[in-house]
């Protein structure tokens, strides 16, 4: 796998895994396992950071004229997955809060 394709796959796999972790965190909060939910958010953040680093690297190389970030469907998919992961992190953090409040209201 060469250049752009490899970068895209690195981004897709890492931020994709982050997205799944964030969604998993909501599921854990739903069942009251807030510790595990927090752990999943942390894991998600670590994985997202890897993808983000690869993305920044790609942008810098493109700006420096080292490796042009050519448009491709795969790149678009990678960007899309990144935005989705970030969105889910924001949503997950809030949902965990909501579930905590629901539980304390119920008690």
């Amino acid at each position, binding site marked *: 796998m060469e250049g752009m394709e490899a970068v895209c796959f690195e981004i897709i796999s890492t931020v994709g*895994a982050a997205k799944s972790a964030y969604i998993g965190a909501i599921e854990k909060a739903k069942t009251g396992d807030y510790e595990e939910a927090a752990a999943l958010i942390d894991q998600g953040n670590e994985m997202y950071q890897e993808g983000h680093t690869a993305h920044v690297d790609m942008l810098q190389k493109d700006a420096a004229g080292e490796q042009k970030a050519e448009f491709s469907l795969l790149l678009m998919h990678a960007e899309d*997955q990144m935005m989705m992961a970030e969105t889910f992190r924001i949503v997950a953090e809030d949902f965990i809060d909501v579930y905590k409040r629901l539980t304390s209201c119920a008690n």
Partner: protein
Amino acid sequence: MKKILLVCNAGMSTSLLVQKMQKVVAEKNLDAQVEAQPLANAMDKIDDVDIVLLGPQVGFEKGNMEKDVNGRIPVDVIDMRDYGMMNAQKVLDKAFKTMEDFK
């Protein structure tokens, strides 16, 4: 003949992995068939296969998928690094091991 189903969001990233896995299957003469489906179509295929492998970006669907297959076959999430590097050999090896351990 082991039938392996790869599932992801749109089918873009897994279709490349499937191609590489099919290449390994052909080269090593393995008794396996690998196909990829987007999440939306996966339900139609789960009854025909021996294992479902989820891409990391749809790993959160593991619980639902396990309910849908009703314990008949294993459901696994592909390792993030194996997926990112498109390491077809590793994904295949793990799939076979998972199917073996599931029995």
